[in-house]
């Protein structure tokens, strides 16, 4: 006779331990969001009524929660924007021609330079409420993560296998069904991966956007970023340490509770039709799978799902006539192109007019010179980071056990907001009398270098064992081994890392060329400082000029340098 139920029977029992965990987790999450969300509506009337930051470490969980909520709201908006923008760009040939270059430019514009414009805009939009600042901060995070998500989605849509599209047409899937059954799923892996990477980068911007001074006015938003800012102003080292500990825990928690389960779940959207060798795992995902509640809920909601599907399918019926895409209407295209050119020309002319009328050509030359200085910093950074991190990355990549162990660590470091470390570096520069002109390179590197390391590891892992054995067999050693096997082997991965790192460095220049500790402010000569100072003063012409110049540098650098390397990587060094 059995006294205890078998494990199977326990599983059959409608409520398992997993269910209790899921219910508790859901309640806790809802309560947390409610508590944090309510405070975004508080009264705010600068400069009289403005939120104060309390440096007591016990407040840190609350501040971290506020910042995290901002991150997730931005992520939700980014996803929505991505789906709409990417879909339109991929489906309409004309829209594509305008939207993709625009995306390319937006991706290169320094997000932080924009803060000044958006903050004033959003405050005007929500007068008397903190919501304006909140929105500005969320918008900054949004702009930091949305572009490459959109690019990834667009590219996935363009590369959906032809036969799958034909099957969708032949089996008369409605627009909605095609979108949910074919297009979004086939883009899912890239989308999740890019969202996760952008989200990691977003911590940097949440920290930078919570406490800024625009138009001679200090704006503070309760959050972990403004906490750090205040700690710097008060030269409070222990508060800084607590903040760093907190952000590290938050990043780990978000990874474990949110990203891991999503990555595991999205693995089923892999387009290769064979089983993958190593699938990722997540305990949260396993818990949700083991629990009955999600499935029961799913079953209960199914009729509702069917209903919405019917309704949305009825709104987007499959086309019954031949698609027109293979017949370009040349005349219409030419007119379209002409209008586009006129608009672009008008914008450029207006900007030039504005800049020249207000600041004059001498100022333009000056910013160009400052841009060159910052470019020099970015290049020195790239060279040094490459010399230091590529050998380490390759060594890790060649050792599978080490790579498995260290890859999450490097990923963590890449998403750790470097601006939390800035004060320590600043202090170090002040104590050792290192000039910020050079020191800012180190500050920029704090965030950017990890991409080089991360991609070097990944690149080294893709070098086939055969090639490495061949190198041993041929007696290739030292520099020769690097020149013949390793550098060509990791080249394309390095280019990917390099593009990301240099983009990150340009962005970081705005906050790392001018840093402070207490009343000490170190200022380096460069375009980043120029933009920051113009922003603080509210000098619109100079803000515009600075951002335009930096965008020009980034776009030019991408076109002339990275794109060529990228082509080389695609053609010659493709493994």
């Amino acid at each position: 006779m059995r006294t205890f139920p078998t494990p199977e029977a326990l599983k059959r029992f409608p409520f398992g331990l997993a269910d209790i965990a899921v219910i508790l987790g859901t309640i806790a999450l809802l309560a947390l969001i409610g508590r944090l969300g309510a405070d975004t509506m508080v009264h705010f009337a600068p400069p009289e009524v403005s939120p104060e930051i309390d440096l007591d470490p016990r407040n840190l969980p609350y501040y971290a929660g506020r910042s995290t909520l901002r991150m997730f709201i931005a992520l939700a908006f980014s996803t929505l924007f991505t789906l709409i923008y990417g879909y339109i760009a991929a489906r309409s040939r004309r829209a594509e021609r305008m939207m993709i270059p625009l995306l390319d430019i937006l991706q290169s514009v320094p997000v932080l330079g924009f803060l000044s414009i958006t903050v004033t805009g959003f405050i005007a939009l929500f007068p008397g409420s903190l919501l304006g600042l909140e929105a500005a901060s969320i918008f900054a995070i949004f702009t930091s993560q949305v572009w490459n998500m959109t690019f990834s989605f667009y590219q996935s849509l363009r590369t959906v296998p032809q036969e799958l599209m034909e099957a969708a047409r032949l089996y008369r899937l409605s627009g909605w069904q095609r979108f949910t059954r074919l297009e979004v799923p086939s883009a899912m892996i890239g989308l999740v991966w890019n969202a996760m990477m952008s989200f990691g980068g977003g911590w940097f911007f949440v920290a930078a956007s919570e406490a800024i001074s625009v138009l001679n006015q200090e704006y503070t938003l309760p959050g972990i970023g403004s906490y750090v800012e205040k700690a710097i102003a008060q030269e409070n080292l222990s508060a800084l340490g607590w903040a760093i500990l907190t952000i590290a825990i938050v990043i780990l928690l978000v990874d474990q509770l949110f990203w891991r389960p999503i990555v595991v779940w999205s693995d089923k959207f892999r387009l290769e039709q064979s089983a993958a060798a190593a699938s990722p795992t997540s305990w949260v995902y396993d818990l949700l799978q083991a629990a009955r509640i999600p499935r029961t809920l799913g079953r209960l909601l199914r009729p509702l799902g069917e209903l919405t599907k019917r309704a949305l399918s009825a709104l987007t019926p499959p086309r019954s006539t031949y698609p027109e895409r293979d017949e370009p209407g040349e005349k219409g295209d030419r007119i379209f192109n002409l209008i586009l050119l006129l608009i672009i020309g008008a914008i450029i002319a207006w900007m030039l007019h504005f800049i020249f009328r207000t600041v004059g050509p001498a100022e333009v030359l000056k910013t160009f010179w400052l841009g060159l200085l910052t470019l020099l910093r970015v290049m020195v950074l790239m060279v040094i980071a490459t010399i230091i991190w590529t050998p380490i990355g390759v060594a890790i990549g060649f050792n599978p056990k080490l790579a498995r162990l260290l890859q999450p660590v490097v990923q963590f470091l890449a998403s750790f907001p470097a601006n939390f470390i800035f004060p320590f570096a600043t202090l170090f520069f002040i104590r050792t009398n290192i000039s910020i002109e050079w020191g800012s390179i180190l500050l920029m590197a704090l965030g950017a270098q990890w991409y080089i390391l991360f991609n070097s590891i990944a690149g080294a892992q893709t070098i086939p064992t055969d090639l490495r054995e061949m190198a041993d067999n041929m007696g290739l050693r030292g520099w020769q081994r690097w020149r013949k096997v390793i550098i060509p082997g990791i080249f394309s991965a390095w280019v990917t890392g390099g593009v990301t790192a240099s983009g990150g460095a340009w962005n970081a220049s705005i906050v790392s060329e001018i840093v402070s500790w207490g009343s000490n402010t170190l200022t380096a000569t460069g375009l980043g400082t120029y933009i920051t100072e113009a922003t603080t003063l509210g000098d619109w012409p100079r803000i515009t000029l600075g951002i335009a110049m930096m965008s020009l540098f980034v776009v030019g650098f991408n076109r002339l340098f990275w794109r060529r390397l990228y082509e080389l990587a695609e053609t010659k060094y493709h493994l």
Partner: protein
Amino acid sequence: MTPKTRLDTALIAVEQVSKSFASPEGKGSFTVLSNINLAIYPGEVVALLGRSGSGKSTLLRIMAGLLSPSEGRVYSNGQPLKGTNTDVAMVFQSFALLPWLTVQENVELGLDAQGVDLAERRRRSLEAIDLVGLDGFESAYPKELSGGMKQRVGFARALVLRPKVLFMDEPFSALDVLTAENLRGEIDDLWNAGQFPSQSILIVTHNIEEAVFLADRIVVLGARPGRIRGIIDVDLPRSHDRTQPRFTALVDYLYTVMTNPDLEVTGLGVAGAVAASPVPAARFEGAAANSVRRSPYEMHLPHARAGSISGLLELLVEKPDGQEDLPRLAERLGLTVDDLLPILDAAVLLGFATVAAGDVKLTDVGREFATTTILQSKDLFRQQLLRHIPVFDSICSTLREKQNGSMRADFFLDLWDEHFPHAEAERQFATAVDWGRYAELFEYDADEERLYLPEAQLVA
């Protein structure tokens, strides 16, 4: 029955259909299909048989309403087709399954789109899954299945819709030989048993045996531009028995037809009585002689590697008389017609072999090529290239006219572009480079994208 009433009963009819694609640079257009007339009737299995470039997949997609014809009309059930053909379901070469849906969800896809409710969807999909022998795999994901099983899902997904005509686009060509054989047999059994959920089948294939085995009528397509060369009735009782002399005679005849693009397709009169066809080598030499005033870039080079040609010849030289039956050769090499024929074409074009009556035979030059040393065989290859294919002489003289003996690849590509769609022009160029390198006529630097004369020639 008069043709008129026959056409009225057709499930799908194609009338004077042509299809051309504009070249991307706007340099005019290329005709893929020209003046096609074809009808599919209830109760028959029709095969579209053609080599690559014959536009057979394009024709299938026009009949499915996935592509619009440039000229002519398509009728489905007597109604002119304006878009996706709803009477048709298709089985794809690459299966085209959605990897994130289970077997059952994949099968339900079309029903779901039609708005069939949940219970009915379930019932019908399970029935179809049962029919193709996938019982027990309903909740599996495609990546857990073997290729053969995946294609079974493809069949179930199409058949569950009970289409009037089932389209198959090279459905077995992505499977290994044994799996393909097994699945092909099962589909044939299902059709012969009269249980098939569609009224007709249209299959695109480049596999001659498969066409004879499955089809009641075989539509032989010619290439450049795609056109119907003739329709052959397979007058055998179903299921078609491979051991029947009539079966092998048909296969032999089709091999002859496929290796002789100029031969008129009249069908097989008396069993086994295949008229000896003209020696194709003569045709090519004739073409070379006639094209003195025409561009040498007009001639289509079959896409075969120099190494493959050499391999084929070395295989043949071990045969008695240097002769071999084509179906047997294809089977021995495990090559489909699409892989074998270009190699064969190249061997014939270069005067190394001749093809007649479904057999391939070495010429004297071919025998010499296959038995001599590497260096001498290269000389032979060069000699035959220059003798039979004018484009090589043209390339070499262009290079010789230049002082440094080199020329951009673009220059030659442009010349091919005038006669072929760009993708094909690129393949022509790649083939020419492969042959020219092997013959040591010229060298190609892929980094700089330039053709060079070898240094020895430059000094001379």
